């Protein structure tokens, strides 16, 4: 099952999340849009970390990434990203 969600945030940035999941387990996540994340590699790192995760694990995994890595998002908040992924995977 593949689902995607697109949201636009104040400040104008657009965030699109596409999640392919099977029986509640995430197979693949793609995070795209015209936002900024520093360091940029953090996005692919998050996508990789979510492979094989269940919906309930999404928040813990992503919060863990941000805590450990000094990651800055510009244009959206981590919470927005988490709820969009959860929405697509659940």
């Amino acid at each position: 099952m593949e689902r995607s969600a697109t949201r636009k945030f104040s400040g104008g940035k657009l965030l699109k999340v596409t999640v392919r999941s099977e029986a509640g387990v995430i197979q693949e996540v793609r995070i795209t849009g015209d936002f900024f994340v520093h360091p940029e590699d953090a996005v692919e790192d998050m996508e990789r970390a979510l492979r094989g995760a269940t919906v309930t694990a999404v928040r813990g995994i992503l919060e863990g990434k941000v805590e450990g890595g000094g990651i800055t998002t510009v244009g959206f908040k981590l919470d927005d990203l988490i709820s969009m992924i959860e929405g697509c995977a659940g």
Partner: protein
Amino acid sequence: MDRLRVIDFAAGDPFYNMALDEAIARRIGSGRGPPTLRLYGWSPSAVSIGYFQEVREEVDLDFCRSKGVEVVRRLTGGGAVIHTEGELTYSFAVKEGDPAVPKDVQGSYARICTPIVAALRRLGVDAAFRPINDIEVQGRKVSGSAQTRRFGAVLQHGTLLLDMDFALLPALTVRAEKLKDKGAADVRGRVTTLKEILRRDLNKERVGALVAEEFGRGFECELMRGSTSKEEEGLVPELAERYRSREWLFRR
């Protein structure tokens, strides 16, 4: 930052342009390149897309092919941009941690855009910075910027629309929702150029020199007219090859 190297305006191939910005940032990050302001243009015209964008969502590839418009993925985030002959592009790079540039990203956009706003005002244009990363005149965008922090450097590049070939706008497939809250129905309504505002043609070299002067003033540093180093030029071919590759363009 006591001194800023200025690389004067030259129009370049899109892949070369992105490769040189990256080469400059890499050298700075490894402590072997000076803080740099580079002014350049695009020949041929090109669409650049943000690092995180899906090329198929943003660009009409058939249109680009038919018009000879190149498409390149940037190293920086942000949105898709059409770069045509009337554009003056700048890139500014310093070592990460340089006190001249605030650590917080939003503050650093405002800081680096300040000299550009100042240059516009000297031209008689009532320009203002609009967060996150735009400069507007009467509510319409005349300049957009994007930043990356990699290799130990901060690199910000951006546009300044002296003029624009609006006939190439269909290269971008902009979603209506992107423009809604900015009060514009389409990109044509969202964007303006200095030519539209001032009703005259401006010279890119001259405006570039003005921008450089304002960077010197704004960052209180000495301007050193310079060119690219051998080391930077040495990095360019391989980087340009990557920017030109389908793999890089279609990675998202």
